[in-house]
């Protein structure tokens, strides 16, 4: 049984409706099995289209067959498929079937220029998007020509299984901010950073400060203050590609979008910064306010990335910018 976002996928209608590239690629083996079953069913019925259960017609089946080939042998050239400007041509038994690329065409061109993907992968992703119907103008499936590449950490990274990031005990510059989100709706996953292991529950996310692919600072994603009865967590909501802060208190839960670093002052007040570089804190957090004002006076304040507690329980915060630290 294969699921996408927790929904059981039996048919292409649900496949399109709940599609997520990251999850699809993460579960490629299971989807491959599902697609192979369809191909087998078709073959066993002596190629009768009535036997199709997953796809609706033989055109989609053709795309499915080649998609299976790409998933199974990603390094093998798909010789029968050719992308020609705005059309995908597929040769099958001396017949050519054409698929209009519509709005995919522009993305293919960008992908080719970007030089991040091989031709085989561009073709494979194109087959996938054509099958998903994203060439139609009214499709709202985002077209992303990218593959999970463990060599490159992106600003927002989705994960479904345990993973590891490279550790550094010293801060190196230039720093950049990267978020990791557990998109697995059912299971928690573990992030390993050197000797540290951080557990991310479903839809939890964590922000790290990286120099290249090395994580120099892993910011807290959950802070619990039992004295003041406040808990802060960073999570990701649904489809969004940005973290949000959940502030849990006795009177309920508040949400703040785009929060990248979080903290709780000695007086139990939540403080946080957002992706646009702004630092948010209650007016009566005077000590924190003084620190913030001190940082903002620096000439590198424009490149602010995040803040973090210095770990001494003194209520002291360190502010990180791209090439500087304010301590």
């Amino acid at each position, binding site marked *: 049984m294969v699921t996408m976002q927790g929904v059981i996928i039996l048919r292409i209608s649900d496949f399109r409706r709940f599609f997520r590239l990251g999850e699809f690629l993460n579960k490629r083996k299971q989807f491959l099995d599902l697609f192979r079953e369809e191909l087998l069913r078709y073959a066993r019925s002596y190629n009768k289209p*009535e036997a199709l259960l997953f796809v609706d017609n033989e055109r989609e089946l053709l795309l499915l067959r080649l998609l299976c080939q790409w998933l199974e042998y990603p390094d093998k050239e798909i010789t029968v498929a050719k992308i020609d400007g705005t059309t995908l041509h597929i040769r099958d038994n001396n017949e050519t079937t054409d698929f209009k690329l519509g709005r995919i065409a522009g993305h293919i061109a960008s992908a080719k220029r970007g030089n991040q993907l091989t031709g085989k992968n561009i073709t494979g992703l194109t087959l996938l998007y054509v099958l998903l119907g994203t060439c139609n103008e009214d499709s709202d499936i985002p077209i992303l020509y990218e593959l999970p590449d463990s060599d490159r950490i992106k600003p927002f990274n989705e994960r479904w299984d345990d993973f590891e990031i490279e550790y550094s005990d010293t801060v190196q510059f230039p720093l950049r901010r990267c978020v990791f989100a557990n998109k697995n709706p059912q299971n928690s996953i573990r992030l390993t950073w050197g000797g540290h292991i951080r557990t991310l529950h479903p839809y939890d996310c964590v922000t790290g400060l990286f120099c290249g692919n090395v994580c120099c600072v892993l910011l807290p994603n959950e802070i619990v203050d039992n004295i003041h009865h406040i808990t802060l967590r960073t999570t990701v*909501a649904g489809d969004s590609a940005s973290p949000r802060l959940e502030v849990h208190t006795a009177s309920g839960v508040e949400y703040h979008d785009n929060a990248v670093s979080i903290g709780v002052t000695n007086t139990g007040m939540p403080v946080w910064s957002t992706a646009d570089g702004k630092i948010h804190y209650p007016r009566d957090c005077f000590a924190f306010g003084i620190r913030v004002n001190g940082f903002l006076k620096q000439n590198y304040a424009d490149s602010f990335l995040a803040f973090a507690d210095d770990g001494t329980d003194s209520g002291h915060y360190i502010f990180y910018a791209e090439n500087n630290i304010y301590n």
Partner: protein
Amino acid sequence: MTDAKKYLRSSLGRTIEEIKKSMLSHRRICFLVCSDVNMVRDIVNSAALLPNSLGDMSDTNDTPPTPTVCFTESDTFIKPTLDKQTMFDRPRIFVCLDKPHYLSGNDTLEEQAKLPIDSLTNYVNITSELIESNVKVSKGGERTLGYMRQSLIIVPLKAKPKVPAIIEPFSTTITVPFMDEKECGEFVSKFLSNCEGVNRSPDSDGYLMADNRHFLSQIYYCLHGMTQRQILCTLNDCKMQLGNIYCTEADADYDSRLAALKKCIRKFSNHIVETSRALIIENPSDKEPAGLGRLSEWLRKHRQQVANPRYFDRYCLEAPKGILVSGVPGSGKSMMAKFVAGCFGLSLVRLDFGNLGGSYVGQSEKNMDDALAMIEALSPCVLWVDEMEKAFSGASGNSSSDVTKRLFGKFLTWMQEKGERGISCFVFATANDISKMPPEMFRSGRFDGKFFTFMPSAAECGKIFESIIEGQTKKCAKESLRNLQAKPLFNCDKINASLFISILNDKTKCLKGWPENETAECGVNRRNKFFTGADIEQVIKKAKTLFLNGFAVVGTTPAGDAEFDSPRFVKCLEEAIVETRTYGETNLADIARCYAQLAVNNFSQASESCLLPFDGYDEMPAMARSAQTDVKLYDLDRYKPGAESHHYNALTYRYDKCLYIMVRNAINNLSSELIKQRL
């Protein structure tokens, strides 16, 4: 792209996922319990189960081109053998509903006709290879068999079916869940936005909701259990009656507008219940029965928990299940049921056990299931079970009928587990004689409170009398609003509690059998008139009839103060009392038996006064006594010497003292019989 979380929480999403799980586990027959054809349409149209093609949708075309979905009303769509199949040229979805009904605007499912048992049995036999296992199947036959195994049969029903054993392993029964609070809130918000231009904004889970979440939450409790179509009809109906229905908490009249809307919704939802023979909608009342102060106090304390159970989830506090009220007939139990519903602001539904029976085997249980399902759809509500001992008499013991036992068991189980499913239905059960009820009814946790209503004291009788007189006077005053000079029905300053109490205490009228030796007296007699609430009502009625028939016209000077002129009405009242044989006069033994039952089953008193404290009742010494010794069942002095005289002297009125002595003596005189019953 769709947010999967919302889809998985929606009633359609949950249903479709259940059907998918059933298909993956090769259970291809799906009994879908729902009351709305729209749900069937949505499932079929989603194309999430099998390739969907309804072909030509026109109802004039009986043979649409190769559709995947087939509608069938007959029981012959699957033939007994593989070679005779004509429908399986591809995997199909069979919907056991006729196409015109599916396509029509009629959204409700009819009461289920016969299940297509023959076709389903043939399907099971063929696909599970129960037959033709030794027969060589052709290539075409193999293909047909494959298509049959990939097909899905949906049987929409209004209630859970009794599935034959042969079909059960290959089938699944899915009850379409009600919309949850968020889904309902979004649906209502959409209606409000379309009709009243109400602004909507996404909440933290992505649901587009109107800004006033409290309003949506309150409305949800009233709409819970309705289909989308029913909600639309209800809201349109309310709009017609009340105008704009949406209001914000900032509005000055928010509470009253919200209460009016909830009342309007409940009126509509009551219509759903009227289709059941066993359920009767009764009118709640805000008139508090006099003399049952402690019960009224209990109800007030638990009002919030019953009316708004979700607020107490955070304390892990389940809504009260209900209470059992037992006592002498005519002591206000039924009046209390109506007051309970009025006090909680909920609908009052009476369960009539007499109408649960049916002529077919299993029909009574089915009717009970249907009735309980309907009650759940109506929740939160008050379920009134009147004279429970008559309904379930014989549910214990060897002579009980199996049907009664099963119905009783079903009802008990439902009472216990409804709270776990979030059903807020307050059961108000009344009983006159609890000795006929199965003892498991009284175990701890079954009811949140057990109350008894006994013979009212003199003061309570006065309150009841005054309440009836005042109620009738007010009612008449409303009806004669045009005449400002109209006399009141009664002069309530004179025809009041004090008057009635004075009559009660009169040895020449109500206490002719007054025991001269008071507490030393051991005998009983039938010469004292002890009243229940029903007796008082009857006496007033009789007095009015006497008045209208000219009784005591001669010899009475009219005061002209009311329609029922006070001096003459007093005489009529006294005469009516003389003529009336009250319950306490004729049924002293029954009162004693009732008291004994209540004492051993740990009931709490519903009234404020306590004429016979349970402390004085103890059957153990009486049961353990030897033949020679004389031990009383009721003896207040038993464990605390002097307690009886203390209690007796504290009773204000002679009526109360007489009642105490008579009932005490009746209990002690019946001690052999009462102990025998216990043993």
